Protein backbone atom coordinates (compact mmCIF):
# COMPACT_ATOMS: atom_id res chain seq x y z
CA UNK A 1 0.00 0.00 0.00
CA UNK A 2 2.85 2.36 0.93
CA UNK A 3 4.64 1.55 -2.36
CA UNK A 4 1.46 2.13 -4.30
CA UNK A 5 0.97 5.56 -2.69
CA UNK A 6 4.62 6.48 -3.34
CA UNK A 7 4.32 5.44 -7.00
CA UNK A 8 1.10 7.43 -7.34
CA UNK A 9 2.63 10.58 -5.84
CA UNK A 10 5.75 10.20 -8.01
CA UNK A 11 3.73 9.77 -11.21
CA UNK A 12 1.56 12.79 -10.34
CA UNK A 13 4.66 14.89 -9.67
CA UNK A 14 6.24 13.82 -12.98
CA UNK A 15 3.02 14.59 -14.87
CA UNK A 16 2.88 18.02 -13.23
CA UNK A 17 6.52 18.78 -14.10
CA UNK A 18 5.98 17.70 -17.73
CA UNK A 19 2.79 19.79 -17.96
CA UNK A 20 4.43 22.91 -16.48
CA UNK A 21 7.52 22.49 -18.67
CA UNK A 22 5.41 21.91 -21.74
CA UNK A 23 3.30 25.04 -21.26
CA UNK A 24 6.33 27.16 -20.32
CA UNK A 25 8.22 25.89 -23.39
CA UNK A 26 5.25 26.69 -25.64
CA UNK A 27 5.00 30.20 -24.30
CA UNK A 28 8.74 30.87 -24.69
CA UNK A 29 8.76 29.41 -28.21
CA UNK A 30 5.64 31.39 -29.00
CA UNK A 31 7.37 34.58 -27.93
CA UNK A 32 10.34 33.61 -30.11
CA UNK A 33 8.10 33.13 -33.16
CA UNK A 34 6.22 36.35 -32.30
CA UNK A 35 9.49 38.27 -32.22
CA UNK A 36 11.10 36.62 -35.27
CA UNK A 37 8.02 37.16 -37.44
CA UNK A 38 7.93 40.78 -36.25
CA UNK A 39 4.28 40.52 -35.16
CA UNK A 40 4.95 43.48 -32.86
CA UNK A 41 5.42 45.74 -35.90
CA UNK A 42 1.63 45.78 -36.29
CA UNK A 43 0.22 44.44 -32.99
CA UNK A 44 0.37 45.96 -29.53
CA UNK A 45 1.57 43.38 -27.02
CA UNK A 46 -0.09 44.97 -23.99
CA UNK A 47 -3.57 44.18 -25.28
CA UNK A 48 -5.99 41.43 -24.34
CA UNK A 49 -6.44 38.27 -26.37
CA UNK A 50 -8.86 35.42 -26.81
CA UNK A 51 -8.58 31.67 -26.70
CA UNK A 52 -9.94 31.55 -30.26
CA UNK A 53 -6.67 32.92 -31.58
CA UNK A 54 -5.26 29.47 -32.39
CA UNK A 55 -7.70 28.67 -35.21
CA UNK A 56 -7.33 32.14 -36.72
CA UNK A 57 -3.51 32.01 -36.74
CA UNK A 58 -3.63 28.75 -38.72
CA UNK A 59 -6.08 30.14 -41.23
CA UNK A 60 -5.99 33.95 -41.13
CA UNK A 61 -8.82 35.61 -43.02
CA UNK A 62 -8.99 39.43 -43.11
CA UNK A 63 -11.10 40.95 -40.35
CA UNK A 64 -10.79 44.39 -41.90
CA UNK A 65 -12.02 44.89 -45.47
CA UNK A 66 -9.62 47.79 -45.82
CA UNK A 67 -6.01 48.24 -44.71
CA UNK A 68 -5.57 49.48 -41.14
CA UNK A 69 -6.58 53.16 -40.88
CA UNK A 70 -7.25 53.36 -44.63
CA UNK A 71 -10.45 53.84 -46.60
CA UNK A 72 -8.72 53.72 -49.98
CA UNK A 73 -6.60 50.56 -49.94
CA UNK A 74 -8.17 47.12 -49.68
CA UNK A 75 -6.74 44.68 -47.16
CA UNK A 76 -4.48 42.39 -49.20
CA UNK A 77 -5.01 39.57 -46.67
CA UNK A 78 -1.31 38.75 -46.48
CA UNK A 79 -1.19 37.96 -42.74
CA UNK A 80 1.34 35.25 -41.83
CA UNK A 81 -0.12 31.73 -41.77
CA UNK A 82 1.26 29.59 -38.95
CA UNK A 83 1.66 25.83 -38.66
CA UNK A 84 -0.24 23.89 -35.97
CA UNK A 85 2.81 23.92 -33.67
CA UNK A 86 3.58 27.60 -34.25
CA UNK A 87 -0.07 28.62 -33.80
CA UNK A 88 -0.20 26.67 -30.52
CA UNK A 89 2.99 28.27 -29.20
CA UNK A 90 2.03 31.79 -30.24
CA UNK A 91 -1.44 31.34 -28.73
CA UNK A 92 0.14 30.13 -25.46
CA UNK A 93 2.31 33.24 -25.42
CA UNK A 94 -0.53 35.60 -26.33
CA UNK A 95 -2.67 34.15 -23.53
CA UNK A 96 -0.09 35.35 -21.01
CA UNK A 97 -0.71 38.98 -22.02
CA UNK A 98 -3.17 41.01 -19.99
CA UNK A 99 -4.35 44.60 -20.18
CA UNK A 100 -4.91 46.72 -17.09
CA UNK A 101 -7.81 48.36 -18.94
CA UNK A 102 -9.83 45.15 -19.30
CA UNK A 103 -11.80 44.09 -16.22
CA UNK A 104 -12.51 40.36 -16.36
CA UNK A 105 -15.87 38.70 -15.74
CA UNK A 106 -18.10 41.72 -16.42
CA UNK A 107 -19.75 40.51 -19.64
CA UNK A 108 -21.30 37.05 -20.15
CA UNK A 109 -20.20 36.09 -23.66
CA UNK A 110 -22.76 34.73 -26.12
CA UNK A 111 -25.83 35.58 -24.03
CA UNK A 112 -28.62 37.23 -26.12
CA UNK A 113 -29.16 40.89 -25.26
CA UNK A 114 -32.14 42.76 -26.72
CA UNK A 115 -31.10 46.14 -25.29
CA UNK A 116 -27.69 45.70 -26.92
CA UNK A 117 -29.38 44.90 -30.23
CA UNK A 118 -31.38 48.14 -29.95
CA UNK A 119 -28.21 50.17 -29.35
CA UNK A 120 -26.44 48.41 -32.24
CA UNK A 121 -29.26 48.68 -34.77
CA UNK A 122 -31.25 51.76 -33.72
CA UNK A 123 -29.65 54.03 -31.14
CA UNK A 124 -26.20 54.31 -32.74
CA UNK A 125 -26.36 52.23 -35.94
CA UNK A 126 -22.98 50.55 -35.39
CA UNK A 127 -23.55 48.73 -38.69
CA UNK A 128 -23.03 52.04 -40.49
CA UNK A 129 -19.31 51.20 -40.41
CA UNK A 130 -19.18 47.56 -39.19
CA UNK A 131 -20.52 44.63 -41.20
CA UNK A 132 -22.44 42.05 -39.16
CA UNK A 133 -24.69 39.02 -39.68
CA UNK A 134 -28.30 40.08 -40.28
CA UNK A 135 -31.02 37.57 -41.20
CA UNK A 136 -28.47 35.11 -42.57
CA UNK A 137 -26.71 37.73 -44.71
CA UNK A 138 -23.73 40.02 -44.15
CA UNK A 139 -24.86 43.62 -43.90
CA UNK A 140 -23.30 46.99 -43.07
CA UNK A 141 -20.37 49.30 -43.82
CA UNK A 142 -16.79 48.53 -44.75
CA UNK A 143 -14.56 51.10 -43.07
CA UNK A 144 -14.44 49.34 -39.70
CA UNK A 145 -13.45 45.77 -38.77
CA UNK A 146 -16.09 43.19 -39.65
CA UNK A 147 -18.09 41.92 -36.68
CA UNK A 148 -19.16 38.76 -38.50
CA UNK A 149 -17.97 35.92 -36.22
CA UNK A 150 -17.02 38.50 -33.57
CA UNK A 151 -18.31 36.09 -30.90
CA UNK A 152 -15.71 33.55 -32.00
CA UNK A 153 -12.75 35.88 -31.61
CA UNK A 154 -13.60 38.72 -29.23
CA UNK A 155 -14.30 38.68 -25.52
CA UNK A 156 -17.20 40.81 -24.27
CA UNK A 157 -14.96 42.23 -21.53
CA UNK A 158 -12.57 43.51 -24.20
CA UNK A 159 -15.39 45.06 -26.28
CA UNK A 160 -16.75 46.81 -23.16
CA UNK A 161 -13.28 48.13 -22.27
CA UNK A 162 -12.79 49.28 -25.86
CA UNK A 163 -16.10 51.18 -25.87
CA UNK A 164 -15.18 52.90 -22.61
CA UNK A 165 -11.81 54.05 -23.93
CA UNK A 166 -10.98 52.92 -27.48
CA UNK A 167 -7.61 54.63 -27.66
CA UNK A 168 -6.26 52.80 -24.61
CA UNK A 169 -6.39 49.52 -26.57
CA UNK A 170 -5.85 50.37 -30.26
CA UNK A 171 -4.58 53.66 -31.73
CA UNK A 172 -7.50 53.69 -34.15
CA UNK A 173 -8.93 57.01 -35.30
CA UNK A 174 -12.14 56.47 -37.19
CA UNK A 175 -14.20 54.90 -34.38
CA UNK A 176 -16.27 57.62 -32.64
CA UNK A 177 -15.65 57.96 -28.91
CA UNK A 178 -18.83 56.88 -27.13
CA UNK A 179 -17.69 57.58 -23.56
CA UNK A 180 -20.03 60.33 -22.34
CA UNK A 181 -22.56 59.52 -25.09
CA UNK A 182 -23.60 55.93 -24.37
CA UNK A 183 -24.19 55.17 -20.70
CA UNK A 184 -22.43 52.32 -18.92
CA UNK A 185 -25.38 49.91 -19.27
CA UNK A 186 -25.68 50.61 -23.00
CA UNK A 187 -21.99 49.82 -23.42
CA UNK A 188 -22.28 46.56 -21.46
CA UNK A 189 -25.41 45.56 -23.40
CA UNK A 190 -23.95 46.23 -26.84
CA UNK A 191 -20.69 44.45 -25.88
CA UNK A 192 -22.70 41.38 -24.90
CA UNK A 193 -24.83 41.56 -28.05
CA UNK A 194 -21.74 41.61 -30.29
CA UNK A 195 -20.48 38.38 -28.65
CA UNK A 196 -23.60 36.63 -30.00
CA UNK A 197 -22.36 37.03 -33.62
CA UNK A 198 -21.18 33.52 -34.48
Amino acid sequence: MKDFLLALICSMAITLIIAVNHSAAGQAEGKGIYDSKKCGDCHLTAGPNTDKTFAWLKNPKPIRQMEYNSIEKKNSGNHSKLSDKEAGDVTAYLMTLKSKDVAEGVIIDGKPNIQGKLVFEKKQCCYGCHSYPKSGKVSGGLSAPSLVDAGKRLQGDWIYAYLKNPKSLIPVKRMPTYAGILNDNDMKNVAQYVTTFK
Partner: protein
Amino acid sequence: MIKRIIVVTLVLFLVTMFGISKSLAASAEENYKWYCSQCHGLKGDGKGINATPDQPVNPKNHTDAKEMAKLSTSDVENVIRDGGAATSKSTMMPPWGKSMTDAEIKELVPYLSKLCNCKFK
Protein backbone atom coordinates in the same frame (compact mmCIF):
# COMPACT_ATOMS: atom_id res chain seq x y z
CA MET B 1 18.49 97.27 -23.29
CA ILE B 2 17.57 94.39 -20.93
CA LYS B 3 13.94 95.46 -21.15
CA ARG B 4 14.12 95.28 -24.94
CA ILE B 5 15.65 91.77 -24.84
CA ILE B 6 12.90 90.59 -22.50
CA VAL B 7 10.17 92.02 -24.75
CA VAL B 8 11.69 90.48 -27.92
CA THR B 9 12.09 87.07 -26.18
CA LEU B 10 8.51 87.19 -24.95
CA VAL B 11 7.15 88.03 -28.41
CA LEU B 12 9.21 85.24 -30.02
CA PHE B 13 7.97 82.79 -27.36
CA LEU B 14 4.32 83.70 -27.93
CA VAL B 15 4.65 83.47 -31.73
CA THR B 16 6.31 80.04 -31.42
CA MET B 17 3.66 78.77 -29.00
CA PHE B 18 0.87 80.00 -31.30
CA GLY B 19 2.50 78.19 -34.22
CA ILE B 20 2.86 74.96 -32.22
CA SER B 21 -0.74 74.96 -30.98
CA LYS B 22 -1.97 75.66 -34.52
CA SER B 23 0.02 72.79 -35.95
CA LEU B 24 -1.17 70.41 -33.20
CA ALA B 25 -4.85 70.95 -34.02
CA ALA B 26 -5.90 68.93 -37.07
CA SER B 27 -7.05 70.97 -40.04
CA ALA B 28 -10.66 70.78 -41.21
CA GLU B 29 -9.50 68.93 -44.32
CA GLU B 30 -7.65 66.31 -42.25
CA ASN B 31 -10.65 65.80 -39.95
CA TYR B 32 -12.98 65.51 -42.93
CA LYS B 33 -10.72 62.84 -44.44
CA TRP B 34 -10.45 60.89 -41.18
CA TYR B 35 -14.02 61.02 -39.95
CA CYS B 36 -16.55 62.22 -42.54
CA SER B 37 -15.12 60.67 -45.71
CA GLN B 38 -15.72 57.07 -44.63
CA CYS B 39 -19.44 57.64 -45.36
CA HIS B 40 -19.59 60.94 -47.29
CA GLY B 41 -16.62 60.13 -49.55
CA LEU B 42 -13.25 61.83 -49.93
CA LYS B 43 -14.80 64.24 -52.43
CA GLY B 44 -17.90 64.77 -50.28
CA ASP B 45 -20.21 63.32 -52.93
CA GLY B 46 -21.89 60.89 -50.49
CA LYS B 47 -20.15 57.88 -52.02
CA GLY B 48 -17.93 56.77 -49.14
CA ILE B 49 -17.04 53.10 -48.69
CA ASN B 50 -19.75 52.70 -46.05
CA ALA B 51 -22.46 53.72 -48.53
CA THR B 52 -23.15 50.08 -49.39
CA PRO B 53 -26.39 49.16 -51.23
CA ASP B 54 -27.93 47.50 -48.15
CA GLN B 55 -27.69 50.61 -45.91
CA PRO B 56 -31.15 52.06 -45.09
CA VAL B 57 -30.20 55.66 -45.97
CA ASN B 58 -27.60 57.25 -48.21
CA PRO B 59 -25.03 59.59 -46.69
CA LYS B 60 -25.71 63.25 -47.53
CA ASN B 61 -24.05 64.53 -50.68
CA HIS B 62 -22.01 67.49 -49.40
CA THR B 63 -21.53 68.83 -52.91
CA ASP B 64 -25.29 69.25 -53.44
CA ALA B 65 -25.64 73.04 -53.06
CA LYS B 66 -29.44 73.01 -53.12
CA GLU B 67 -29.76 70.49 -50.25
CA MET B 68 -26.87 71.85 -48.21
CA ALA B 69 -28.10 75.47 -48.41
CA LYS B 70 -31.22 74.42 -46.50
CA LEU B 71 -29.06 73.98 -43.38
CA SER B 72 -28.00 76.65 -40.90
CA THR B 73 -24.52 76.90 -39.44
CA SER B 74 -25.84 75.63 -36.10
CA ASP B 75 -27.61 72.68 -37.84
CA VAL B 76 -24.26 71.64 -39.28
CA GLU B 77 -22.37 72.05 -36.00
CA ASN B 78 -25.06 70.24 -34.01
CA VAL B 79 -25.30 67.21 -36.31
CA ILE B 80 -21.51 66.78 -36.34
CA ARG B 81 -21.24 67.14 -32.56
CA ASP B 82 -24.33 65.18 -31.42
CA GLY B 83 -25.07 62.95 -34.42
CA GLY B 84 -28.36 62.23 -36.14
CA ALA B 85 -30.12 61.07 -32.96
CA ALA B 86 -29.90 64.48 -31.33
CA THR B 87 -30.97 66.40 -34.43
CA SER B 88 -34.00 64.40 -35.65
CA LYS B 89 -31.96 62.92 -38.49
CA SER B 90 -30.95 59.33 -39.14
CA THR B 91 -28.90 57.72 -36.36
CA MET B 92 -26.63 56.45 -39.12
CA MET B 93 -24.81 59.74 -38.54
CA PRO B 94 -22.71 59.17 -35.39
CA PRO B 95 -21.85 61.83 -32.81
CA TRP B 96 -18.31 63.20 -33.19
CA GLY B 97 -18.42 65.60 -30.21
CA LYS B 98 -16.10 63.41 -28.13
CA SER B 99 -13.70 62.78 -31.01
CA MET B 100 -13.23 66.40 -32.17
CA THR B 101 -13.02 69.61 -30.16
CA ASP B 102 -15.70 72.31 -30.51
CA ALA B 103 -13.16 74.46 -32.37
CA GLU B 104 -12.43 71.64 -34.84
CA ILE B 105 -16.16 71.13 -35.44
CA LYS B 106 -16.65 74.87 -36.07
CA GLU B 107 -13.76 74.80 -38.54
CA LEU B 108 -15.52 72.08 -40.54
CA VAL B 109 -18.37 74.51 -41.37
CA PRO B 110 -16.39 76.68 -43.86
CA TYR B 111 -14.83 73.49 -45.27
CA LEU B 112 -18.32 72.09 -45.96
CA SER B 113 -19.40 75.44 -47.36
CA LYS B 114 -16.50 75.20 -49.80
CA LEU B 115 -17.49 71.63 -50.78
CA CYS B 116 -21.08 72.61 -51.61
CA ASN B 117 -20.08 75.99 -52.96
CA CYS B 118 -22.96 77.40 -50.95
CA LYS B 119 -23.67 79.40 -47.81
CA PHE B 120 -25.48 78.13 -44.74
CA LYS B 121 -28.47 80.02 -43.34
